[in-house]
């Protein structure tokens, strides 16, 4: 049998619009309720004295509290199929108190069925549901104007509601709606065409669901493969689910945050090697080079990487009783990364009925607003409108573990930070122990590049500490700050087309990785000589003073040096001459420039 398409859709509406009844009808009239389940619903309806009517809501309201109160509290997922399609219904609660559950249902749906009680018309909650669904990316709406029997099947009532809703929908860019008059308790226009509504000859709800485009949110053009799990095999396999793009053996890819490029050696689904993997498949890949890659990294197209930034703007739907607090430490989960973050500014709250922006600095339960967020480590993202999987995130309370909010990234915060590979310049970062030879080599490289006519700048750690970073000490925090400031200057220069040489001990791997991710166009040079050799050279006398106990926090003696795991160039200055080292660095720069401008 040929595989059928799958449509995931959401049903939403206000309390008592008859939503659960409509779903019960849909399931019953497509023969998707089993006889024994139907018998128990019929028995419960009779026990409740429902005048011979069958209470179809009893099929979907799965919790005792829901049946006791006659309301839907949480999303229920239902499964049915017709010869044309398979369907997953996410039946969302109508009560405003349970908006977070409604949003949960919307996040995985590609169409929405909104119910409106013909007697009540378009309610604030109807607009709120439509707005949330739209913010989460749903563009196809079916509007069931229900309980038509209670308004005498009057076409004017139907047309008025249609007009009202269309007026609101105009604010939702790209959204389209299809209107159906229904009476779900009797099944009119749900699956079977109504004989009581002769003025309506459009498709029934089921016909609509069988033909509405299955909006695919996945794109196949830009590769985004968030690394979810590293399988320790030989060679290592990087596992994850394709967010977008296609992975094929032989593809050139860029790994973030390291910014390194490499080649895909093999693509697998389980044990099986495949020619290509694409969304929504879960794959495992092998790479040609042995790089340091972990969970939370992202493998992207070599020439079209995501934005890299610690600051961005987003739309946030707040889901917790405790309002948002700017500046408060939160956790943010984005793709397979979890980072510390805070909201730096609430710029507007969106009116749920009009989506108009209203000035505010507050965000409370069930409100959505535009905010600016700052994270402690950079995120690699695309705008949510372009890529659901790399543009969505959740906010978690680090103390109580609640999911506080769901967010959709709009764009990197101004000033725009360029993606790796986009800048015209290059940063060449020399790291290594004191007296390993960083300044000697970088100075010589600087002279050569200058002589060749390149725009080139040299930032030496010792010199920078005398002005820009004057006053910083040698604690872990101060060392990181020192490197971060140098990185910032390097980033500005690189963005403006300068080849920037940095020579700094920069002992910590994490901060080097962070800078590399920010700049993107980056070569790491490990200037490497064993500690004994450096100590023998001791150009500045610091090892002697450290050994004599006159100086503390000296890298290699009583403060750690974390060597690069996969440097672009490694200069063994104890085994090669400075001229040999300089040549190898220049070759790497030349190679990089050639790849950039072939």
């Amino acid at each position, binding site marked *: 049998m040929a*595989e059928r*398409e799958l449509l995931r859709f959401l049903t939403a509406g206000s309390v008592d619009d008859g939503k659960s009844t409509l779903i019960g009808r849909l399931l019953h009239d497509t023969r998707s309720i*089993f*006889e*024994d*389940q139907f018998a128990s619903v019929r028995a*419960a309806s009779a026990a409740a004295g429902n005048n011979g009517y069958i209470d179809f809501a009893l099929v*979907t*309201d*799965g*919790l*005792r*509290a829901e*049946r006791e109160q006659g309301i839907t*509290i*949480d*999303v*229920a*997922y*239902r*499964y049915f199929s017709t010869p044309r399609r398979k369907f*997953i219904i996410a039946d969302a609660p109508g009560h405003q108190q349970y908006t*977070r*559950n409604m*949003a*949960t249902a919307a*996040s*995985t749906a590609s169409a929405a069925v909104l119910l409106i009680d013909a007697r009540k018309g378009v309610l604030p909650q109807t607009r709120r549901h439509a707005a949330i669904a739209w913010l989460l990316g749903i563009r196809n709406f079916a509007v069931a104007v229900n309980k038509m029997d209670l308004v005498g099947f009057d076409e004017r009532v139907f047309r008025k509601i249609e007009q009202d809703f269309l007026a609101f929908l105009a604010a939702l860019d790209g959204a389209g709606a299809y209107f159906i008059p229904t009476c779900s308790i009797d099944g009119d226009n749900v699956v079977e065409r109504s004989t009581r509504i002769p003025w309506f000859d459009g498709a029934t709800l089921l016909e609509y669901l069988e033909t509405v485009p299955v909006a695919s949110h996945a794109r196949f053009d830009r590769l985004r493969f968030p690394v*979810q*799990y590293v*399988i320790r*095999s030989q060679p290592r396999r990087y*596992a*994850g*689910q394709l967010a977008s793009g*296609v992975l094929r053996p032989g593809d050139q890819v860029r790994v973030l945050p390291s910014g390194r490029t490499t080649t895909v050696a093999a693509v*697998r*689904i*389980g*044990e099986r090697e495949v020619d290509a993997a*694409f*969304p*929504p*498949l*879960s794959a*495992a890949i092998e790479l040609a080079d042995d790089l340091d890659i972990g*969970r939370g990294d992202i493998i992207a197209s070599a020439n079209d990487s995501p934005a890299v930034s610690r600051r961005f703007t987003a739309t946030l739907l707040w*889901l917790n009783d405790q309002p948002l607090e700017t500046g408060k430490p939160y*956790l943010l*989960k984005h793709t*397979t990364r979890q980072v510390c973050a805070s909201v730096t500014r609430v710029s507007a709250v969106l009116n749920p009925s009009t989506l108009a922006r209203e000035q505010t600095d507050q965000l409370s339960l069930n409100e959505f607003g535009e905010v600016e967020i700052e994270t402690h480590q950079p995120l690699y993202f695309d705008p949510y409108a372009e890529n*659901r*999987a790399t543009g*969505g*995130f*959740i906010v978690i309370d680090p103390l109580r*573990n*609640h*999911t506080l909010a*769901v967010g959709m990234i709009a764009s990197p915060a101004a000033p725009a930070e360029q993606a790796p590979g986009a800048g015209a310049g290059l940063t060449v970062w020399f790291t290594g122990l004191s007296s390993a030879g960083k300044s000697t080599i970088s100075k010589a490289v600087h002279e050569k590049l200058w002589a060749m006519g390149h725009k080139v700048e040299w930032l030496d750690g010792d010199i920078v500490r005398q002005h820009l970073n004057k006053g910083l000490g040698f604690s872990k925090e101060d060392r990181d700050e020192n490197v971060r400031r140098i990185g910032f200057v390097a980033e500005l220069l690189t963005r403006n087309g300068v080849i920037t040489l940095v020579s700094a001990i920069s002992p910590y791997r994490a901060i080097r990785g962070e800078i590399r991710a920010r700049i993107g166009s980056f070569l790491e040079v490990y200037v490497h000589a064993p500690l004994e050799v450096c100590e023998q050279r001791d150009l500045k006398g610091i090892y002697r003073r450290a050994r004599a106990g006159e100086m503390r926090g000296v890298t290699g003696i009583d403060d750690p040096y974390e060597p690069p795991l996969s440097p672009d160039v490694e200069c063994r200055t104890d085994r090669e001459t400075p001229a040999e080292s300089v040549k190898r660095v220049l070759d790497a720069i030349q190679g990089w420039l050639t790849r950039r401008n072939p």
Partner: protein
Amino acid sequence: MFETSHLDALEAESIFIMREVAAEFARPAMLYSIGKDSSVLLRLAQKAFAPAPLPFPLIHIDTTYKFREMIEFRDRTCAALGVRLIAHTNRAAIENGANPFDLGVSKCCSLLKTRALLDALKEHRVEAAIGGARREEERSRAKERIFSLRDSFGQWDPRHQRPEFWNLFNPRIDSGETMRVFPLSNWTELDIWRYIERENIPVVPLYFAKERDVLVRNGQLIPVEHNPPLAPGEAPQRILCRMRTLGCTYCTGAIRSSADTVPKIIAELEQAVRSERENRIIDHDRDGSMELKKREGYF
């Protein structure tokens, strides 16, 4: 181009969920009940972590009232795949005489399954337990999140579930709390059998029709393996039947069927008018009984 079949999409989602558990929790485990869903779960786990061994053990809650063929299948499967199995039984309750015939199925289930499960999770300090439950099976399961939090007593609070967006699961728990994770949430019974067919996954032979000795009670076919007490004049009959779900012998009714191959089972299910768990006696002892058991910590 780039089309994904329904089964491929379900497989990808399940594999993602399992990898998420392995990445986020220090001590995960997989609850293995030996049934068809567990068999699919096991195959998906192998695919998720290949070629490495599974990064978690299997836990089987053995009530001692399981079918002999189930235990044989379990031991054969674990040996063949080289997976670590923890079989846990509530010995104290059994020594105190717990059995479904004297205690009633509800109390028996509470002691030999729910209590045993909670004890096993505690003993092995399991933080996240992967289970094979599907939302389609039962209406309270239809409400459950994929990552479902349990408090320090193993209880589910269905009124205060964490919202869950896309595939961004919130894995955070406090000490004592556990996470139950359901990679098969969106699979239907038919999906399971179609996948078993496609992937050629071995299942317990009890799923295939054969003439078996059963007691006929209120239309239910009760297996006689653990010698349930007979009513006066009652005697086992030989009936062509198969199991649609597997649990304890006394609580799992067979269905009349001649489907003795996977394709025949699929054909039978495509025409089915009765629900999958109709023959599970424990689900129906009172209204909302599955929800009540789940609140206590049952799967």
